[in-house]
């Protein structure tokens, strides 16, 4: 009897590893087909029903190639920790608000639905799809971190110009000179390093160092630790570049939670172009963009995450300085733009939208080009040919199907400069010009919305990026608020106190 039991245990012991692994994979598969298959496909080939509408596309697990791993460049597979991190969420300190998964992609973090164990089951299933069962445990070494002083940043800058600028652009805005594709054939764009909040796997120096050191497998981002590469850098050099990349981040452009565009009042003439020094004093506000996916020709693969806007106004006009990073200027005679464009090349464009005329409280036109209540749109359009140049137009719209272009001559001016991957466009137009134009009152709030066309991403007509109604305020002239009321309040209270005191004395 005792003998038999022992044998049973021995047998169990022998098989248990395998048996447990098998059930883990099954559990993982069950979770996978319930939650993950919609994007990544039933077979894990990255071909779920949603896949066609996503950029970056969902990962194909059958290859076992992962972009965001922490193992060494020559190690094909990610570590178990990497897999767990990718499934449960990669939140970094600077991600887009509300994003709990892989930043700026459609991959959410699952830690709110799945426990640690379940995540590991899913990871086990994913590993089984690629055919490897034991993941490496070694991560790259972060101990050689170089302090981010100015010398390091300076060294990094030099290295960056030599090693990285070809793809990321000299200013680091991702204004590539090459058309890039990843191993699955999907279009990729070099990251705009001035927008740290769009980095997929974090924007801390360590994160960037990891990307430089490991590369991004499956894409043209190579490992700079690979001795076989001509561009190989030493550990310290890679830290220098990482430090420099961190310094490129323009965090003031990151949209805040509830941005309000503050227009500053000027006495004289408003600037016509973006180079004017008058812009320096105006406050900058960032706004997140979403692609137009409401009517007809929809856009599912946006190429710009946000716009930054400044505004100035005087008694009769308002001027907007709109800035966004764009890998190309989308000018059809520009060789680089033609090369990089996805399909047909259209001119870039940007537009500002207001409700027309006076607005009653709580009464706004439809944000998508108005409806029964009209909107006024000021649009700037990049040049379609060298001769034609940039254009400005005013559109009076009462819905997408009811659009009237108004003669903008002399009313609206618009002027853009493209420089190293960044558009800076000034649109200047009339306030209170006619009953169709927007009306503002000093100190008041008015809704405003923006739209953006990236021509090299195929944006034209209804296919574009946009914001919903945002608030804009026309700040009162003269610094600081009135001190009259605060002082009056103080004096009244003080008099009250004195009155009280004297009446109390009198009673005695």
């Amino acid at each position, binding site marked *: 009897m005792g003998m038999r039991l022992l044998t049973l245990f021995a047998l169990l012991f022998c098989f248990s590893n395998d048996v447990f692994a098998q059930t883990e994979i099954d559990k993982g598969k069950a979770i996978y087909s319930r939650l993950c298959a919609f994007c990544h496909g039933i077979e894990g080939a990255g071909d779920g029903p949603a896949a066609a509408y996503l950029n970056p596309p969902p990962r194909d697990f059958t290859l076992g190639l992962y972009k965001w791993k922490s193992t060494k460049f020559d190690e094909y597979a990610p570590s178990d920790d990497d897999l767990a991190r990718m499934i449960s969420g990669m939140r970094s300190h600077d991600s887009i608000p509300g994003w709990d998964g892989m930043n700026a992609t459609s991959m959410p973090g699952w830690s709110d639905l799945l426990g640690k164990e379940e995540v590991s089951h899913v990871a086990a299933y994913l590993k089984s799809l690629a055919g490897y069962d034991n993941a490496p445990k070694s991560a790259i070494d972060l101990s050689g971190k170089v302090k981010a002083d100015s010398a390091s940043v300076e060294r990094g800058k030099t290295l960056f110009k030599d090693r990285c600028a070809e793809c990321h652009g000299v200013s680091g805005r991702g204004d590539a000179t090459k058309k890039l594709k990843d191993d699955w054939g999907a279009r990729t764009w070099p990251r705009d390093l001035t927008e740290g909040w769009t980095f997929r796997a974090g924007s801390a120096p360590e994160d960037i160092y990891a990307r430089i050191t490991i590369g991004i497998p499956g894409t043209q981002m190579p490992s700079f630790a690979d001795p076989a590469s001509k561009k190989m850098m030493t550990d310290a050099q890679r830290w220098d570049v990482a430090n420099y990349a961190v310094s490129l981040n323009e965090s003031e452009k990151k949209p805040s939670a509830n941005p309000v565009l503050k227009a500053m009042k000027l006495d004289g003439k408003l600037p016509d172009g973006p180079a004017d020094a008058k812009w320096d004093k105006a406050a900058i506000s960032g706004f997140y963009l979403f692609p137009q996916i409401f009517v007809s020709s929809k856009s599912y693969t946006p190429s710009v995450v946000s716009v930054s806007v400044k505004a100035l106004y005087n008694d009769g006009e308002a001027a907007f300085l709109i800035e966004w990073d764009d890998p190309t200027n989308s000018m059809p005679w520009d060789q680089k733009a033609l090369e990089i464009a996805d399909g047909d090349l259209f001119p870039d464009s940007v537009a500002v939208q207001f409700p027309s005329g006076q607005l*009653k*409280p*709580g*009464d706004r036109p439809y944000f998508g080009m108005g409806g029964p209540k009209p909107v006024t749109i000021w649009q700037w359009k990049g040049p379609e040919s060298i001769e034609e140049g940039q254009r400005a137009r005013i559109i009076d719209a009462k819905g997408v199907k009811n659009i009237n272009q108004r003669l903008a001559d002399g009313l609206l001016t618009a002027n853009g400069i493209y420089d190293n991957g960044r558009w800076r466009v000034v649109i200047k137009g009339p306030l209170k010009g006619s009953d169709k134009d927007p009306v503002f009152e000093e100190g008041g709030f008015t809704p405003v919305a923006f739209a953006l066309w990236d021509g090299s991403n195929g944006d034209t007509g209804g296919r574009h990026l946009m914001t919903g109604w945002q608030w804009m305020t026309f700040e009162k002239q003269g610094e600081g608020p009135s001190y009259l009321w605060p002082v009056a309040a103080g004096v009244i209270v003080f008099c009250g106190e004195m009155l009280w005191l004297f009446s109390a004395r009198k009673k005695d």
Partner: protein
Amino acid sequence: MNNFLKVALFSLFIIGVYTVYSVMIIPPITPEEPPKEEAAAMPVTVDELVALGEQVYNGKGACALCHSPVAGRAPLLEKAAAVAEARLREKGYNGKATDAEEYLYESLVAPSAFVVPGFGASGTNDTISPMPGVKDPAIGLSETEIKAVIAYLQQIAGVEVTVKLDGGNAIQEASGR
């Protein structure tokens, strides 16, 4: 006097609180402007006529206010145009219409000509309709609008739209308003 002052201040304070609450705390909602009599674009095609009818039915005519399953105050009209012909032969019918379209017109301007059982004004044993005539100033539909509503009713009932717009008449009327 001292008491008077105290009481007066107290009362003013109470009034002040109510005022501040009503003026500053609750959200400002601006009522709609009084409607302006606008001459609508004259429908030319049948589709336009039906579209105008739908607009009037849900808007100016306020028909949907009562003729809806939620309100339950009046019969539903999805099949009204289809049963119109049969209504003429019903016992309770006391109008002068001779065909379906005339019947519909009549039930719009003189609703008591036939009252659908169960929907009469209370205490009239279904002889008088609680519905106001649509030419009534409270609703005040024009001839064109009434015809448009009939066209709309015929369309939702799935019967042929028989309404004909007498062009000259309609235009004349539109400019008259």
